[in-house]
């Protein structure tokens, strides 16, 4: 797993400028772009392009975050899909545009040039240069003898398949090193925060050069995040409704969706990973909205308020009778503390029939403390003597008696034991194999006073993680990776420091953190050949 460096310092003169780059749109972003442009061109069509198969649906699941810009190029199947989708879109547009599609227009070439300029602004998210308008309009003129409708459709398709439409170009003027183009910046902000092309306000600001200052950019970021702190409509949690970029960050940061990847042994009769995921999404949405002005960490690591549905009650150890539980029901759970005690996370970081303190501990190390751990060494045959040590903690203790194993396992197991008070599907438990559960934990080798020592249970872990400066820096570094689409480098130290300060000064407001990152020179500065 890629683990960012949380300890890059702010050094005078460090340069965060990176090379101009292309960043491919995701399927959702491309879909939103096509629909948005379509609707702007043909406002009377409310829901255009229903059923369109849009490419770019795959992501590299092995990346830490799905936004890593370098992971995305173009492949043969995607190109075929792109050709099909843009062909269908352009032909549908010509049909819906009617007379505006220039079919039968007196001055065909002038009409097409006007359409190209108008559509180009929407497709490319910037005004087209005269030479570009001419290039595309010439296609229609050359194909006109074969039929004006098809000629215009192919012209629009030629624009829609352009790399600058399907990728975002983050670049400035040739031969310079400095802020990227204002329209490119508007797209970077808008796609980053909302998965959509720039709206009218952002486009007008870009056109007037209004995205020069960090304050102006931060203001736009916060506007796009909205009052729910980027969570969108807090009541929309159905699977079909795409996650907002902020929601996606938390899903990828917490991996609560791993619950769907671990089958559980036997017929439990209540374990529904899809509903657990949905409950977690609902909880996070409410949490993000409620902490938009501050207080994210105490909630993330300590909340005792959970959303429960009929389908997930069993994972919370509840057996409601019909009618006893709302759907969903907001409930206080005194035996839980934070998202890491949600059954979705606990069941995802478990095995089929038992807990997995190793993976839980590894997650804390890598995602909360930014400490990379090596993978299981090649050739290693992990075996736990469960027959001799039916209590998992004891079996792992015996495993760590081997110094070769202990080198890594002492970093993972002892902190992973914090969650031993729950079973592999997230239910609270007091006993394991006939013995009282021991949920004491330790972050071996911790140097921060608040993280040192042996402590009890997940509530104490949550409190200490929430108060830790290292955890805050690590969280910011992960956020940097997600929102910037790359790992932080030496030149990004000041960006990380300022973002951490923005987060802490706002008492833990995630919108403040995101606004600080996206208005930083680490996003805007580009070296242009």
């Amino acid at each position, binding site marked *: 797993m890629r683990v960012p460096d949380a300890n890059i310092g702010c050094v005078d003169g460090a340069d965060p400028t990176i090379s101009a780059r292309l960043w491919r749109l995701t399927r959702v972003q491309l879909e939103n772009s096509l629909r948005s442009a379509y609707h702007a061109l043909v406002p009377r069509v409310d829901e255009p392009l229903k059923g369109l198969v849009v490419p770019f649906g*795959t992501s590299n699941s092995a990346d830490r975050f799905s936004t890593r810009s370098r992971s995305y190029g173009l*492949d043969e199947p995607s190109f075929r899909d792109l050709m099909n989708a843009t062909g269908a879109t352009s032909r549908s547009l010509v049909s819906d545009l009617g007379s505006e599609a220039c079919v039968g227009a007196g001055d065909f070439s002038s009409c097409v040039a006007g359409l190209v300029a108008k559509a180009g602004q929407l497709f490319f998210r910037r005004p087209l240069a005269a030479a570009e308008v001419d290039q595309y309009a010439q*296609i229609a003129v050359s194909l006109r003898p074969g039929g004006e409708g098809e000629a215009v459709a192919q012209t629009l398709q030629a624009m829609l398949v352009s790399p600058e439409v399907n990728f975002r170009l983050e670049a400035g003027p040739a031969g310079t090193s400095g802020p990227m183009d204002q329209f490119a910046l508007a797209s970077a902000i808008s796609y980053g925060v909302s998965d959509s092309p720039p709206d009218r306000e952002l486009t007008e600001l870009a056109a007037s050069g209004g995205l020069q200052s960090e304050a102006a950019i931060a203001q736009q970021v916060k506007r796009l995040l909205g009052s729910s702190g980027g969570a969108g409509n807090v009541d929309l949690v159905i699977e079909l409704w795409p996650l907002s970029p902020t929601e996606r960050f938390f899903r990828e940061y917490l991996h609560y969706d791993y619950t769907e990847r671990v089958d559980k042994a036997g017929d439990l009769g209540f374990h529904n990973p899809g509903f657990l995921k949905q409950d977690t999404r609902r909880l996070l949405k409410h949490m993000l909205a409620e902490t938009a002005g501050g207080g994210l960490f105490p909630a993330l690591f300590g909340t005792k308020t959970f959303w429960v549905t009929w389908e997930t009650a069993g994972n919370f150890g509840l057996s409601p009778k019909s009618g006893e539980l709302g759907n969903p029901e907001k409930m206080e759970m005194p035996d839980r503390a934070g998202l890491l005690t949600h059954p979705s996370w606990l069941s995802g970081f478990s095995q089929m029939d038992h807990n997995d303190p190793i993976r839980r501990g590894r997650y804390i190390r890598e995602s909360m403390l930014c400490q990379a751990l090596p993978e299981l060494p090649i050739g290693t045959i992990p075996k736990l003597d469960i027959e001799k040590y039916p209590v998992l903690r004891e079996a792992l203790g015996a495993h760590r008696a081997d110094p070769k194993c202990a080198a890594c396992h002492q970093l993972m197991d002892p902190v992973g034991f914090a969650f031993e008070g729950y079973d592999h599907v997230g239910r609270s438990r007091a006993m394991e194999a006939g013995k009282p559960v021991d949920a004491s934990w330790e972050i071996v080798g911790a140097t921060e006073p608040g993280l040192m020592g042996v402590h009890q249970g997940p509530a104490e872990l949550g409190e200490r993680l929430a108060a830790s400066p290292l955890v805050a820096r690590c969280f910011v570094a992960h956020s940097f990776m997600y929102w910037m689409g790359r790992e932080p480098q030496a030149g990004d130290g000041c960006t990380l420091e300022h973002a951490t300060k923005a987060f802490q000064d706002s008492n833990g407001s995630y919108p403040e953190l995101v606004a600080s990152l996206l208005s930083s020179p680490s996003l805007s500065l580009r070296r242009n050949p």
Partner: protein
Amino acid sequence: MSRFHRRAFLASLGLTAGGALLPGIATKLVSRAYGQQISQKCVVFWFIGGSIQIQQGQTGWGLCPPEFAAGEVGTGGENALGGSTAFTWPKKLEPLAGLRNKVAIVDGLNNITPGASAHGSGFQATTCAPGNNSPGGPSIDQAIAQQIGTQSALSSILVGHNKDTLQLKLERTADSFAAAKGSPVPHTTSVPLLMRELFGTGLSGGKPPSPKPIMDSLRLDIKRLESRLAPEERGALNDYLRLVEQFETQQAAREKIVCATPAEPAASGPEEMATAMTQAITLAFQCGISPVAAIAIGTGTGHEDMPEYSATTGDPDFDGHSFVYDYSRQAGLIQRFHMGLIAEMHKALGDSLLTVYTCDSGMAPRDNEAGSVFTHHAMNSRVPAIVVGDLGGALKTGGRYLRYGVKVAADHNNGAPNFHSIADLFLSVAHAMDAPLTTFGGPQQVVPTAGPLAELMG
């Protein structure tokens, strides 16, 4: 080899160009096609997650014939390297019994991949190069497709499924195949999407609008953008340019194909999906859509990616992890099911088809159930493979058991007698397919190649 005329074949079935088919008829279509052969050589690579049990163990589902089990780790390749044909036919290969003289069991190939990630089992198996997050080189299917598939409507057909793609209902995933270092190529994990890709457009003999003006404009756009990016940031543009050229070639090839569009078969569970996918590939080969296919089942970046195949194993909790007791019997049942599909494909395509069935670089358990000897991940010194077909004599399969490898030493015996890597088998297949690759295994050649396997080449 008898020649097969696509147009004549379709006419014989009453499926003239553009003829509509009733839902569910695809299966019948393919079954009616069995016995028809084609002139073009075709190859299918199967990569199976979770491993292929080698030794017979307690359940007797191993690949290595019991007659040779005693020499499991030979010291000089003395163990039947000449290719014995007198052995007990492995249980998991039962469906291939009728094709026995066209099958070779290849045992003992090495896939030791220095620098490999412990869990990079998908890409590492197909590329013979390190690569977990990102492939370290082209996968063998793409390396061959780049040589013999460039003039086809599709250079290759990539399909498969694993636990995630089934549970999350993904249409594509990109964890197994690659065009080049750092360039994964997604494979299709949805039957409806596969049917659209293969048969959805442009196969009715009609001529779609020429994309030339669009492609010419696209070339100008790419050129304009190139000047704005440093060379190291132009990877996506290079992809674009390559795909523009390829698309034009493919469109031209597609226009020449006259082939009926079959209806979409119903396919929900992994068995049905695998069946539908292999039938679609068979028909696509018969239509001349592509000469190369690869199937990734249960591959990915972990141990537990193999779908349940519960209708076959009878176990809805089968997790594809070879630590689990009874794994080899259940995996054997799944693999026997695959062999049935392979047998059907060979019946349909005859000497035109070559199949290579091997595992990803997950564990290869030997010995007993929940095995006492494992070779982990990219440390496999004994990768098993099943080769079916001889392409009319291009390969000497001949119903033989070919045992490679010598006792593994610290230096992995590079260069020792009878040391051969899985890359050498891939090279053999490439040569038999008229794609004479000289090396394989990524830019660094981390998995050594010594050339095609002399014992297998015709």
